[in-house]
């Protein structure tokens, strides 16, 4: 699927997560995201065969180091513990710590524990959303879709990722060579004979790489070289934008002036975005093998955006607070049904099995 479609899905899901505090919706969204992750994994392994044989770290999506469910349990536990211990509000007292303990002393309430667990759920849902991105979009595509203005950043990242397996290989070689010479790992100091040759070797290869890149005409500036003053225009725009955002952020804290701060923040953000766009126009690059936008991508984007609408149309049940007395959160069916829109990628991937694999090779 198209990386940009995934980014829209990710953005919509993150906005939904951060906008709501109702544990029922959060739980629903978490389940939806988990289903999507599972379907992606199924699609990846189903495609298997040809691709699993390649060890190309750049084109293959990453497996996750931590399962989202395990992270959710951890985050909710920690959140409940922290808030339960620090906040002493709420009416349902579970137990009471002696008052002599600074900060922690006082009643431990069920409300504070639930509130902390909800905080943990928000974080866990956010984590699960980004886990989808890590699984679904290959690293190369993530770099390829950095804004044009950040072309040097993209090149550096691509070089770095290409050099990672290389460096690991070199580390192993150096370790073997040093072991033959009787090197043993006994303490921190023994890392130096491994680290230094790898560093020097890497720097040597950087020189060779630079020569090779120059020989192929990298960064050669033709007649259409941009004038330096265009960079200065972008610079002034960034300065203006950043200053506006800064003033806007501070004004929010000043009584009576808060009304102006959103205007300044939005205006400043747009100005910085313009500066980035403007710098990007000077970069002339051609990209090959771009992903095609398919019907499925459209469905996914529409589904994700539609899922947001009821959340903002009927916001009554969006927020939930356990204070002052713990009550069961209310559930709006319209909002709940709409959240299922985030399932769109799972549906598309499921229907598109056996998937269109040709485009990524």
């Amino acid at each position, binding site marked *: 699927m198209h990386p940009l479609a995934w980014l829209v899905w990710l953005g919509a899901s993150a906005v939904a997560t951060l906008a709501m505090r109702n544990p029922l919706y959060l739980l629903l969204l978490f389940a939806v995201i988990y289903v999507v992750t599972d379907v992606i994994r199924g699609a990846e392994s189903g495609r298997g065969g040809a691709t699993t044989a390649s060890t190309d770290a750049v084109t293959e999506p990453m497996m996750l180091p931590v399962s989202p469910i395990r992270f959710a349990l951890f985050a909710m536990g920690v959140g409940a513990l922290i808030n339960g211990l620090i906040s002493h509000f709420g009416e349902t007292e579970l137990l009471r710590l002696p008052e002599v303990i600074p900060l922690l002393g006082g009643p431990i309430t069920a409300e504070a524990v639930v509130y902390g667990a909800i905080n943990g759920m928000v974080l866990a849902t956010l984590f699960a959303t980004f886990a989808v991105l890590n699984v679904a979009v290959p690293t190369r595509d993530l770099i390829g879709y950095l804004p044009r203005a950040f072309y040097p950043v993209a090149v550096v990242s691509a070089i770095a990722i290409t050099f990672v397996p290389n460096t*690991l290989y070199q580390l192993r070689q150096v370790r073997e060579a040093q072991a033959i010479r009787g090197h043993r790992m006994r303490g921190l100091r023994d890392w130096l004979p491994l680290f230094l040759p790898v560093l020097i070797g890497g720097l040597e290869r950087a020189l060779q790489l630079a020569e090779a890149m*120059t020989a192929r005409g990298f960064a050669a500036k033709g007649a259409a070289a941009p004038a330096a003053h265009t960079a200065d225009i972008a610079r002034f725009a960034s300065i203006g934008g950043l200053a506006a955002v800064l003033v806007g952020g501070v004004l929010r804290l000043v009584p009576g002036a808060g009304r102006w701060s959103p205007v300044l923040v939005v205006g400043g953000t747009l100005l910085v975005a313009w500066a980035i766009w403007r710098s990007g126009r000077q970069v002339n690059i051609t990209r090959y093998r771009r992903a095609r936008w398919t019907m499925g991508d459209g469905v996914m984007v529409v589904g994700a955006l539609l899922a947001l609408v009821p959340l903002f149309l009927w916001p009554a049940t969006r927020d939930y607070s356990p204070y002052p007395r713990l009550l069961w959160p209310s559930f709006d069916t319209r909002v709940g049904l709409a959240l299922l829109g985030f399932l769109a990628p799972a549906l598309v991937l499921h229907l598109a099995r056996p998937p269109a694999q040709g485009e990524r090779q």
Partner: protein
Amino acid sequence: MRSCSFVGSRLAVHHVRRSLRWFIYLLASLVGVVAFVYPFFPRIEADAGPVVQAMDSPLFLGLLGGLSLLALLLETQDGVEASGVSGETKRIALLGVLVGLNAVLSFVETAIPGPGGFSPIFFLIILGGYVYGGRFGYLLGALTLFVSALITGGVGPWLPYRMLIAGWIGLAAPLMARINRALRVQGTRWELVVLAVYGGVWGLAFGALMNLWFWPFATGPAEQHWQIGISVWEGVQRFLAFYVATSLLWDLARVAGTAAMMLLFGAPTLRTLRRFARRFYFEVRQCASSLSQGELSA
């Protein structure tokens, strides 16, 4: 060698551009700092409109942090761009390789967890910024975390903040060169001690700032929060108590590890980086000398 022809008015333009750069670093960093400390400040109008209230959400803080990161990236990468054709390619290659190497170090850290919050990546970020300049250091720091997140599947909402802090570490590293010059300890043992202290301070600050990022999540949005109306100082006290109780020991491992790496490996690494600086910056050195002559005559 186009860039070697700085004379007269060109020199003035060069100076103006330099101060513009500094201004951007300062403003963008301030925006970033605001993103971190914003949760401490009490909202005065709790019943303001929905748009104003939206400014209390983590989304707004994310916007601030992201803007700061992007503005700094845009400005620092321009330094990699601007220095003559062959110099630019060399710096990009050098940066790419060092980022890759540092990402491997952080990869090793994920695979073999060290004690507590120890992380080997700060060592190279500091020395890279110290030897090759602040812009280089910023990119080295920010991109190391970017790339290591990409290869370990660690892309998440925390990533921009981690990139920003790591970038700051590299960006401010050349200030240590000034301190070392002022103390006249360059080339002695004490040079490394200064760098070790710098690394230790940042090791602690990295943990504290990332805790600060987590703080709004741990306490929830301000408008629903038990601590509404609490003063700034009380908020800071609560945070400090939380930090000392949950993270200080964890972070001290990072402080000790970074400082120890600096003292043990600093000297040979610094020598290596400087040796390669001469090989990498061959053309730029000539520019620099002609520039300083121009400065003298101006």
